[in-house]
C-alpha cells in the first residue's frame, strides 16, 4: 500500500483502527490530544471526550472487561489523575486488550512539569512500549493489543512530544477484525477486595515473569550490530543517536522498556568496549543497567533536564557538530498572548487592577500570568485553583475578600467541582470565578460536557454549570458577561464582600470559535488619545503604541470593546456606534 506522512498521534489512531479497537476514551492534553480526534474519524471506533483521565481509564477498563478492545490517551500529568485505576488495573488484567497511551513532554513545550511515565510503568508493574517514529507508533499500538491479551494486562504506550507531533512515513494496512470476547463473571479476577487482590498480586508477578521473557526473546527490542561503543536508547533519543553518534557504534533500541530485557542488555554490553545509555528525563534505563551490574555511561554525559538532540550526542560522543553564526541584534522576545477578543482578558485586567490574590489553573487563562496583565498568583495542576483557594482561606480567613480562584469550564468539570464541594462542606468563604468560554481552549477547541456538543460536534446533553454549583450548595451563583467590564467589576466586588461562598460564571465563547459573531473593529481618535498606555496594559495583540499614541489593528481587532471601557479619555470608539 501507498506510504503517507502521518503525525505520530494520527498513526496511533490508525493502529487502533487496524487493530479493531472498539472504544476510545480521553481527556484532551497536549501532546496527546490528536490521537482521540483522529480515532473519532473511524466509523468502527466509539471515541469520546471524558470528563477527566481517571474516568477515561476506568471506562476503558470497563470496555475491555466487557470484551472489546479499548484504549485511552492522556498527557503525562493526566496519568497522575488516572493513577488509581492504573495500579489496580494491573492486578485485574483484561478480557479484550487494553492500551493506555501516555505522552510525555520533555522540554515542557506545553506542560507544567517534566515527569517520566516510565517510572509509573515500573511502579504499577505494567509493560511499557515506546515507538521512535510514526511507523512504530502504528506497529506498536497493534502489538500492544496482542501483548495485552496474551499476558492479560493493560499496556502503556509511551509517546513524547517529538514522536506525537512529528509526521513521518506510515504504510497503511487493512483492519483485522477481532471477534468480541464473551463476558464471563470472574469475581476472583475482577473484584479487588483484599482476599482476591492477594491472589492477583501473586499472579501479577507470574505475568511479569512471562513478559520479561517476551521482552528478552520476542525481537521487540532491536539490536543493530557495531564495534567499539554500544548505545542503549529508546524513542527519539534513539533516533538522535543513530544520526550523530560516531560511525560504527552498535545500538540496542528498547521498544519495550518494562519489563527490562536484562539478559539482552547484558549480552549487548558484553560485546562493546564501552556502553552508553542515551535517554531523556529520568535515568530509568541507566539505573536498571546498574542494578544488573552493567558499567554504563549515561547521566554523566547527558542532562536529565529538557530534550536531547543529535547535536548534544555528537558533542558528547565525539561526532561532528556543525558550525553556526549568531546575530548580535537584540531580538525582542515573542511570548504567546491571550488572543484579540479573548473573553478572559477583561477579567484578568480587573483582578490585576484590584490587586487580588488569584489562585489560577491549567488552560489558556494561564496566559493571564504573562506581562502586562500578570494577574495570576499560582498555577499547579488541573482543579488546584479551587481547592488551593480553600486551603488559603482555611489558613488565613482574613483573605476571603482579597483572593479568588479562576478556572475554565472544562477544567471545572475535570476536577474543579470537587474543590467547590470542599468549599461548601468545610465552609470557607471563597469566591470562585468560572471562565466559561464554551470550549476546551488551549488544547485546540475540544467540546466538553458543559458546552452541549460531543466529540463529533453533534448535540449532546449540556451540564448546566449554574445549577451544578447550586446543587452542591453554593447559594450565590452569579452569571456575568466578561465583555462588560463595569458590571464584571461590580459583581466581583459584591461577591468578595459576601459572607458566604460564591461562584461567578463569566460566560462568553472563545473569540476563535467559528460561529462567534465578530463585531466591527474599534478605532483610536488620535486627538483624544493622551498616550497614557492604559489600553496597552490589556496585552491585546490588536493594540499597538507608537509616536506617543495608541493604535488598533483593523484586521486583528474583533470588536470586544474592553479597551474602550478602559480608556479614561473616551479616545477609543466602538465600530458599531
Amino acid at each position, binding site marked *: 500500500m501507498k506510504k503517507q506522512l502521518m503525525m505520530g498521534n494520527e498513526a496511533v489512531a490508525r493502529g487502533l483502527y487496524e487493530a479493531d479497537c472498539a472504544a476510545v476514551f480521553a481527556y484532551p492534553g497536549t501532546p496527546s490530544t490528536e490521537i482521540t480526534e483522529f480515532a473519532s474519524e473511524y466509523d468502527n471506533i466509539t471515541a469520546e471526550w471524558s470528563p477527566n483521565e481517571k474516568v477515561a481509564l476506568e471506562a476503558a477498563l470497563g470496555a475491555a472487561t466487557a470484551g472489546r478492545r479499548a484504549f485511552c490517551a492522556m498527557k503525562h500529568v493526566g496519568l497522575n489523575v488516572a493513577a488509581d485505576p492504573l495500579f489496580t488495573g494491573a492486578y485485574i488484567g483484561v478480557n479484550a486488550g487494553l492500551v493506555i497511551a501516555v505522552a510525555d513532554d520533555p522540554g515542557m513545550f506545553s506542560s507544567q512539569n517534566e515527569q517520566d511515565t516510565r517510572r509509573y510503568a515500573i511502579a504499577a508493574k505494567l509493560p511499557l512500549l515506546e515507538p521512535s517514529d510514526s511507523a512504530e507508533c502504528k506497529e506498536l499500538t497493534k502489538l500492544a493489543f496482542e501483548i495485552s491479551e496474551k499476558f492479560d494486562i493493560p499496556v502503556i504506550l509511551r509517546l513524547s512530544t517529538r514522536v506525537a507531533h*512529528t509526521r513521518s512515513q506510515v504504510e497503511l494496512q487493512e483492519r483485522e477484525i477481532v471477534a468480541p470476547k464473551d463476558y464471563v463473571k470472574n469475581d476472583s479476577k475482577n473484584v479487588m477486595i483484599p482476599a482476591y487482590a492477594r491472589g492477583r498480586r501473586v499472579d501479577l508477578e507470574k505475568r511479569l515473569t512471562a513478559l520479561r521473557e517476551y521482552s528478552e526473546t520476542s525481537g521487540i527490542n532491536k539490536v543493530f550490530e557495531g564495534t567499539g561503543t554500544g548505545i542503549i536508547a529508546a524513542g527519539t533519543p534513539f533516533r538522535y543517536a543513530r544520526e550523530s553518534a560516531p560511525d560504527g557504534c552498535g545500538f540496542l533500541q528498547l521498544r519495550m522498556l518494562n519489563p527490562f530485557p536484562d539478559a539482552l542488555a547484558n549480552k549487548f554490553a558484553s560485546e562493546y568496549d564501552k556502553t552508553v545509555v542515551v535517554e531523556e528525563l529520568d535515568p530509568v534505563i541507566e539505573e536498571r543497567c546498574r542494578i544488573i551490574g552493567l558499567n554504563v555511561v549515561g547521566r554523566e554525559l547527558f542532562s536529565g533536564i529538557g530534550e536531547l538532540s543529535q547535536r548534544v550526542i555528537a558533542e558528547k560522543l565525539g561526532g561532528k557538530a556543525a558550525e553556526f553564526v549568531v546575530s548580535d541584534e537584540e531580538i525582542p*522576545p515573542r511570548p504567546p498572548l491571550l488572543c484579540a477578543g479573548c473573553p478572559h482578558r477583561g477579567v484578568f485586567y480587573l483582578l490585576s487592577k484590584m490587586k487580588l490574590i488569584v489562585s489560577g489553573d491549567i488552560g489558556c487563562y494561564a496566559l493571564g500570568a504573562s506581562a502586562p496583565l500578570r494577574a495570576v498568583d499560582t498555577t499547579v495542576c488541573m482543579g488546584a485553583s479551587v481547592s488551593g483557594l480553600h486551603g488559603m482561606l482555611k489558613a488565613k480567613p482574613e483573605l476571603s475578600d482579597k483572593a479568588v480562584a479562576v478556572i475554565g469550564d472544562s477544567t471545572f468539570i475535570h476536577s474543579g467541582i470537587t474543590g467547590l464541594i470542599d468549599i461548601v462542606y468545610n465552609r470557607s468563604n471563597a469566591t470562585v470565578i468560572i471562565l466559561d468560554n464554551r470550549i476546551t481552549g488551549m488544547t485546540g477547541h475540544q467540546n466538553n460536557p458543559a458546552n452541549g456538543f460531543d466529540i463529533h460536534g453533534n448535540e449532546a446533553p449540556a451540564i448546566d454549570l449554574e445549577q451544578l454549583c447550586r446543587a452542591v450548595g453554593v447559594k450565590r451563583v452569579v452569571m456575568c458577561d466578561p465583555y462588560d467590564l463595569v458590571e464584571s467589576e461590580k459583581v466581583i466586588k459584591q461577591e468578595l464582600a459576601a459572607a458566604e461562598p460564591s461562584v461567578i460564571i463569566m460566560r462568553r465563547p472563545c473569540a476563535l470559535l467559528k460561529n462567534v459573531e465578530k463585531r466591527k473593529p474599534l478605532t483610536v481618535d488620535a486627538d483624544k488619545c493622551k498616550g497614557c498606555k492604559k489600553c496597552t496594559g490589556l496585552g491585546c495583540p490588536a493594540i499597538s503604541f507608537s509616536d506617543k499614541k495608541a493604535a488598533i489593528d483593523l*484586521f486583528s481587532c474583533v470588536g470586544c470593546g474592553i479597551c474602550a471601557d478602559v480608556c479614561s479619555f473616551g479616545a477609543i470608539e466602538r465600530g458599531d456606534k
Partner: protein
Amino acid sequence: MKKNVMIVGVGGQGTILASKLLGNVALAAGYDVKVSEVHGMSQRGGSVVTYVRYGDGIESPIITEGEADYILSFEQVEAVRYLANLKTYGTIVVSTATVAPAGVLTGSAIYPYGILERLEEKNKDIKIVKVDADGIAKSLNFIRSANMALLGAFAAASDFDKQLWLDAIAEQIKPQFLEVNVKAFEEGYQTAKKQ
C-alpha cells in the same frame, strides 16, 4: 543527501500548512521525510517553529545549530531569531512582513527595523531572498494567500520540480480557493527567480 528546512513565524500565520505541503512535496519526490511541529501554547501568537527534513534515511525529527539549509520565515524578526540554526552558507527565504511582539506593542521594546539588510551586510555567505508576500496577497485581493506567495519563493530557491508543488497545493487547498492560491504561488516564484 539530506536537506533541512526550518519554517518559522508567528502562531496563526500558516507555518503548519506550509510544512505539510513541503513534506508532501518531498515525499512525492521519493525522499524519506520527517516534519516536526509543536502545538499548544505556541499557537497563541507566540514564536513558532516547524522542522522539515528530507533526504535519505532521516533519523532525527529536529534541526539544531548550524544544520538548516534553509530558513523559511513568515516574518522578519523570526528569520533572525533562529539564525544560529542556519548553515553558515545557508539560504533565508523571508516574507518582509513585520508583526510586533508583545513588548513592542506595549512600547517596552523596539522593533529592529532593517534587520534583514544589516544581516545581509554582515554575513555575505548567507543568501537572503526577500518576498513581499503580503503585498502579493493584497494585489490578489486575498490576504490569506500570503503563505502561498512565500512558498512559491521558497520553491524557486529550492530544488524540487515545480509541478510537484502545484500537485501538493491542489491536494491540500479547497477547490474554491485553489486558483488564487496558485496565482500567489506563481508570483512568489517569479519574484524569487529574479533575485
